[in-house]
């Protein structure tokens, strides 16, 4: 009766505080060894997923930064403004290192096992397709994009020294070589893997979903790009290169046309069976982006001539100022 201490409310106080529950190894029975094996396996799986998620988050953040940098570009041109290009290169070399760390975790059977933790690849695809578009005004194909990502992985695995080669791929070259295109992802990567097995066998592969959803998001970036460049320069960031006279009878091709093409492209594709819900959501956003760019095109046709020509706040090309028209 009197042996208990009481707290201020009058409740009995436990003498020695709560005992730590002696959980593990308390019960040993014939199934314990089996469950211990299973525990080891599950831990391995969870740890790997954790590592992947961490890397994935970092890659996503870096990809987003690349996209922000790219949004500071004002016109489509084979060579990006120097300061932007160098920002992107820095980010890409960081991504390359992360990809190299990621690669061994997502080989073979694990590629799809952890697919849901690899959303970063979508984001990366978005950044890379956007960069490609700004340089060439074309859509890069999945096979070529996959090669870019594989190259990045290899560069990240190689002991630095190769930063200057990052993303110097074709500037004005037309949407490149359809030759590797028909091959599905598996063929090109399985060949080099054993060949260079000594130092860098593993590369990260994009799946078709990564590519397609990345391109879905690309339409949003194109919309944003068109909007800002129209607002700031009144030109919708047209391709200034290609030698076609700036105010020739017919301008090369507008973003409006590109957006229309992408829009129809996605409308015509059969709905990806994997995740109809997500697909339709993305398609909806794409439709809206197309509408917005249409509107821009209209505005510019109607009122474009009324815009005062003059000061153009082209923040991008601080280093290399080029005049438009």
């Amino acid at each position, binding site marked *: 009766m009197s042996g208990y201490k009481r707290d201020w409310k009058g409740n009995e106080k436990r003498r020695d505080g709560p005992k730590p529950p002696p*959980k*593990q190894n*308390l*019960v040993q*029975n*014939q*199934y*314990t060894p*089996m*469950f*211990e094996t*299973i*525990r080891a*396996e*599950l*831990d*391995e799986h*969870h740890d790997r997923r954790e590592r992947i998620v961490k890397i994935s988050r970092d890659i996503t953040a870096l990809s987003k930064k690349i996209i922000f940098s790219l949004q500071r570009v004002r016109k489509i041109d084979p060579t990006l403004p120097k300061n932007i290009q160098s920002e992107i290169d820095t980010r890409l070399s960081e991504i390359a290192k992360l990809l190299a760390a990621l690669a061994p*975790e997502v*080989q*073979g*059977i*694990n*590629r*799809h*096992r952890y*697919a849901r933790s690899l959303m970063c690849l979508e984001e990366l695809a978005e950044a890379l397709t956007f960069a490609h578009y700004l340089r*060439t*005004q*074309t*859509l890069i*194909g*999945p096979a070529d994009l996959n090669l870019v990502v594989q190259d990045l992985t290899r560069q990240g695995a190689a002991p630095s020294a190769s930063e200057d080669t990052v993303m110097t791929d074709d500037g004005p070259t*037309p*949407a490149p070589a*359809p030759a590797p*295109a*028909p091959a*599905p992802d598996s063929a090109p990567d399985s060949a080099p893997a054993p060949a260079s097995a000594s130092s860098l066998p593993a590369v990260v592969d994009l799946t*078709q979903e990564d590519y*397609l959803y990345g391109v879905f998001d690309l339409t949003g970036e194109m919309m944003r790009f068109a909007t800002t460049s129209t607002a700031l320069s009144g030109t919708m960031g047209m*391709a200034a290169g*290609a030698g*076609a006279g700036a105010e020739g009878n017919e301008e*090369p*091709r507008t973003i409006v*046309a*590109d957006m229309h*093409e*992408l829009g129809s*492209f996605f409308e*015509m*594709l*059969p*709905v*990806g*069976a*994997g995740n109809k819900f997500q697909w339709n959501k993305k398609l909806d956003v794409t439709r809206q982006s197309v509408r917005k760019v249409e509107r821009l095109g209209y505005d510019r046709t109607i009122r474009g001539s009324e815009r005062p020509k003059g000061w153009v706040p082209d923040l991008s090309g601080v280093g290399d100022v080029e005049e438009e028209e």
Partner: protein
Amino acid sequence: MAPPMIDPALFDQLRASIEEDTAVRKELEQIVDELNQDVSFTQGILSKIHSTPRSKYPTLLPQIEQGIQKEISSIARLSSFASKYPYYKYNHRYARTLQDAISTLLLTAWLGSPSFSPTPNVPGHLLTLEDVGRVLQAPVNLKSGRDDDVFHVTIEDYLLGLISVVDDLSRLAMNSVTLGDAALAVQISSFIKDLHAGFQILNLKNDILRKRVDSIKYAVKKAEDIVYDLSLRNLIPKKEGEAGGAERTEETA
């Protein structure tokens, strides 16, 4: 002039591969449907254990085994089809069904199935993951690296199947008492407790496995309550595992 925005070949290529993906899913769905039928048929016969006294098991178990044989041949079809594609790309389409099939197999073997248990007609043997793989003629627990990316039984499949067994057994514990077989109830209770202790060893993340594992404690409680009821009334047979319910069978009679 600038190249076209989209390479014309790209569209056809993408469409072809999306269509192929859809076709794969359709075919897979058919195979899984068949497996599903086999599984629910087997589950149906298996549910008879709740109304069959243990003395009749030798006639019941072979019937259940027939159902399981069907499952095995459906799984073989599934295996050869699914192995053509990355396993984890499509496995969520059939994982649930596969787990159900595994649980019928585990339960049948535990009950003393002559073909699947090393102790025919004596309940209490749990097949391991490797045993399951042997019966289903599929590899188990494939991991990265050198393992092929083919159809296999994962640890998760095994554990989730096992959890269903626990649930079913806790029901059987009750019904076996009704059928006058107190010994079986006692045996089930200790089996479930052992498994529960085993599951406690695992470090679980917040996923489906965790959720299902959490349900085991209810099965433990259910089985313990039954044992408590039995011991309160002094109904627990002195020697376990033989001719159950030695003391009293008049409860149902």
